């Protein structure tokens, strides 16, 4: 491309994404920002958001990482189907995702009933339910990025490790994982960001109780619905700043060295 064309289009892209954020900034009433954010609910919701999104990230890593590894390294019938299946939560409108989660993990759900009968443990209306909903929606990000990383990594180092007597587990932890760490960092950031912003599936599946399942996006939505738009914007701003901080902080690891 002529040197200027991509730069101009890229700048347009930045404006496209940046302008709405500037719009938000403009509407925030800065004078009352402090008092609105010091409200107990806002603090509790933000804290809960961080906890549940990190929990969701943990769940996504615990299951998504092995899944990505299997998809990248093993051949088995139906692999293409599994690969597509795992991405579907991205397509599903989140509210429908929440309903689907109720069917599966609700007290009367396919697995939820069993869980409840056996252990008396209920996910719905529980913080663990919020974690589950966020993990459901965000796991595809981890799987997709991790699979790409596993697939594109240079496997010659793994072979060398095997000839040095390293078994599969040792190889994975000491060779494979360090090699894909930058890409995984990027994928984890995306996953975490998506979990942090999750709304529809959480409210539908886990409900909304301050301190238990009311994450920031839920509180923001309620503030909007009840006409407290400025409070909602202030909270959104904080959410953005927190994630911006994390994302910029990750910049060195982001997609490998810049």
């Amino acid at each position, binding site marked *: 491309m002529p040197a200027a064309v991509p730069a101009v289009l890229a700048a347009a892209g930045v404006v496209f994404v940046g302008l709405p954020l500037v719009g938000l900034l403009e509407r925030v009433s800065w004078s009352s920002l402090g008092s609105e954010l010091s409200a107990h609910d806002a603090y509790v919701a933000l804290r809960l958001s961080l906890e549940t999104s990190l929990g969701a990230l943990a769940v996504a890593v615990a299951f998504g990482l092995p899944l990505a590894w299997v998809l990248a390294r093993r051949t088995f019938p139906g692999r293409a189907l599994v690969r597509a299946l795992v991405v579907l939560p991205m397509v599903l409108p989140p509210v429908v995702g929440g309903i689907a989660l109720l069917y599966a993990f609700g007290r009367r759900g396919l697995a939820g009933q069993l869980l409840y009968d056996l252990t008396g443990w209920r996910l719905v209306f529980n913080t663990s339910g919020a974690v589950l909903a966020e993990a459901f929606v965000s796991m595809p990000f981890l799987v997709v990025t991790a699979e790409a990383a596993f697939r594109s990594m240079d496997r*010659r*180092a793994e*072979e*060398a*490790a*095997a*000839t*040095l*007597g*390293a*078994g599969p587990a*040792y*190889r994975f932890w*000491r*060779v494979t994982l*360090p*090699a894909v760490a930058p890409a995984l960092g990027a994928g984890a950031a995306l996953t975490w960001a998506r979990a942090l912003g999750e709304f529809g599936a959480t409210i539908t599946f886990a409900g909304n109780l301050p301190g238990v399942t009311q994450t920031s996006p839920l509180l923001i939505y309620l503030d909007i619905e009840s006409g407290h738009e400025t409070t909602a914007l202030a909270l959104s701003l904080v959410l953005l700043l927190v994630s911006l901080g994390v994302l910029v902080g990750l910049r060195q690891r982001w997609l490998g060295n810049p």
Partner: protein
Amino acid sequence: MSLSADVDLRIGGLRLRAELDVGDDAAVAVVGPNGAGKTTLLRALAGLTPLDAGRVVIGGAVVDDPRAGVRVPTEERRVGVVFQEPRLFDHLTSLQNVAFGLRARGASRTEARAGAAGWLERVGLAHVAGLRPRQLSGGQAQRVALARTLATEPAVLLLDEPLASVDATARADLRHLLRQELRRYPGSRLIVTHDPVEAAALADRLVVLEDGRVTQQGPLSEVTARPRSAWVAEMVGLNLLEGTASGRSVVAGAGAVVSTATSLTGPVFVAFRPNAVTLHRRAPEGSARNVWEGRVSELHPAGDRARVRFEGPVALVAEVTAGAVADLALADGGRVWASVKATDVEVYPA
């Protein structure tokens, strides 16, 4: 320990079908052109590429036999591999790289560090213990790779063109180190190369692999003196003709007749050195029985000699002194006569 293998596999466009025996404490060099399957053979022995059929036996134990369902994973074979590229772990220092195998085989952190430090010292790299692979030169990296492999005390040592990525000067030093270490090393060694100097320096037996098949094997001196394929002849720097002998004369390729000192019958190879070929501006008279007329197709100096590519009833390479080039006013495309004495010609059954 000894290594014995009968490898049969297909990968990509290659069909590899090779039998191989490396005695206890023996060193074998596998030579052959690009794409012959040398690396693939070595990978099959290490368990990195699966066999379709055949078996691999290391120190008496079957480690691979697809028919019998045996396939011992690489990490349990105790084969040490030095790859063509160093393949060091980028996120570890030189010392940690060498310690890796020791740790993987269960040594404590302190033991592994001590062992690794000893090995780095031994390959002359104690001073780069704390550096990462990116900070090492090609030669240093390959030394670390060697130390890393030797440190695990493998039963069998497989080296895949260990000098290929190293420049000429560093290569001499590294070859020297390799010779030393291979001499001290107590098991079977297999060195892949396509450099005859390397083969000569590091092994006492040669296996020639061409297009997935073993085309010749034997002691170094025998393969060097009596090549059985154009590739081997080229490698050892001999002219090779294929023909049919009846008594002391051989009818070669395009109908040219070669006189020999030995009497044989049937299909034979005829070999002679480039410096046994004399070039003449005019048809020579004298005792040389083998005289052909042809053209110089290429000429290039090499030190105080020049190598001349000759094309006539037979194609051959002659090595003449720089003086002769001037005297004969040799030039590309020029017309010349080439002669070889019957006594300079080695003839042996094909």
